[in-house]
């Protein structure tokens, strides 16, 4: 059996993953690395969203450029 791809998701409300329940605490963000099939099913229900880390990557590139100089 091939290994499923995992991605980082932000959990927005109470969810059930496997036999466990997870919910973000008040004022805190909850992030989880989830199997895509599991994560996508939560996204479809509006209970999670994929975390896109574009800003961090741009910052890394800028840092590389400044190092070269």
């Amino acid at each position: 059996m091939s290994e499923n791809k995992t991605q980082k998701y932000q959990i927005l409300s109470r969810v059930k993953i496997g036999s466990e329940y997870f919910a973000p605490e008040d004022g805190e963000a909850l992030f989880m690395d989830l199997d895509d099939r599991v994560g996508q099913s939560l996204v479809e229900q509006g209970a999670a969203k994929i975390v896109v880390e574009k800003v961090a990557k741009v910052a890394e590139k800028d840092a590389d450029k400044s190092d070269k100089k």
Partner: protein
Amino acid sequence: MSRIIQFQGQRAAESHLDNVQLNIDPIVTELVLGQPGPGEMPGARILKSVTAPAWNFQYRQNDLNRLKRFDTERGMRQPIKTGDFRYSMVSASLKRFSFGTLRDVDELQNAHPSLGLREACGRFSKTIVDMDLERRRRDLLVTAGNYDTGNTLAISAGSEWDSAGGDSKSDIRAMLAVISGKTGLRYNQISVFLSDKSLQAALEDPIFNATRSNWTADTADEQALQRYWGSGPVWSMNPVEADDNGVVSPMYGDVAILYYNSGIAGVDTMDGDLTFACDFKYNGGVASKPFYNDLVTSWMFPWTAYDYPAITTNFSGALITNCAA
């Protein structure tokens, strides 16, 4: 009895008999009236309607203030500070709706009474109104954002009730605990509505079935689930709707809705019923005279709605989504 028959707003004949004598065929050319017959709607059973007393009205919304401690002794000695006891008030406005019947006035008036065309048109229009109201209630009930924080549960792929990792008892009781913790309601006071898809998934719950199969081969039912979950009454309905392409689908997908409803219309109890502040008046069949439009020769079937799209006591209900694989 003589009846006036009109054509394009002009008086054509006084009676069916005259009509025949004038060589005008009084029978309509086509009579196709399908009725979906939706019967009782689940949304109407879950959400109490609220009778609107006036054009502009205010609807009270109970919040957690009802559970807090107030200084009642102070109230004995001086005028009660009504500010402490106020309800959150929201206002709604009157909207008017109307539907044509697919038949114009001439068809209705010329049709022979034995065809019951008027009544059939009336029922058809009422069905349209009923379905429209049910869609509004459905949209309120299946939108997670309409529930209090923590009163929703999204089941991920692989944990649906009819999958290998399914455990409906754990899920239902988790949400019963949430509602009970916020309202003081006991578990057996909280009802559970299941769409048909969710009901069938619950009946395939592997843990439930494994324990049951030791003593019976019968398929379980809603009552068995109620005893298994320790909840209030469990019930199911399966209203369907059709899109513009004629594709029929269940209105409630695969959700489970937990709710409390005292069943007393127009009364908000201390327990915090789920309510739906939409009230409408339907004139009960063929339109009355003010709604007959001479200019377009059409009968209107008007109804009015006090449209307030919100669940007012959102902590006494809970929503579970993706119950079925």
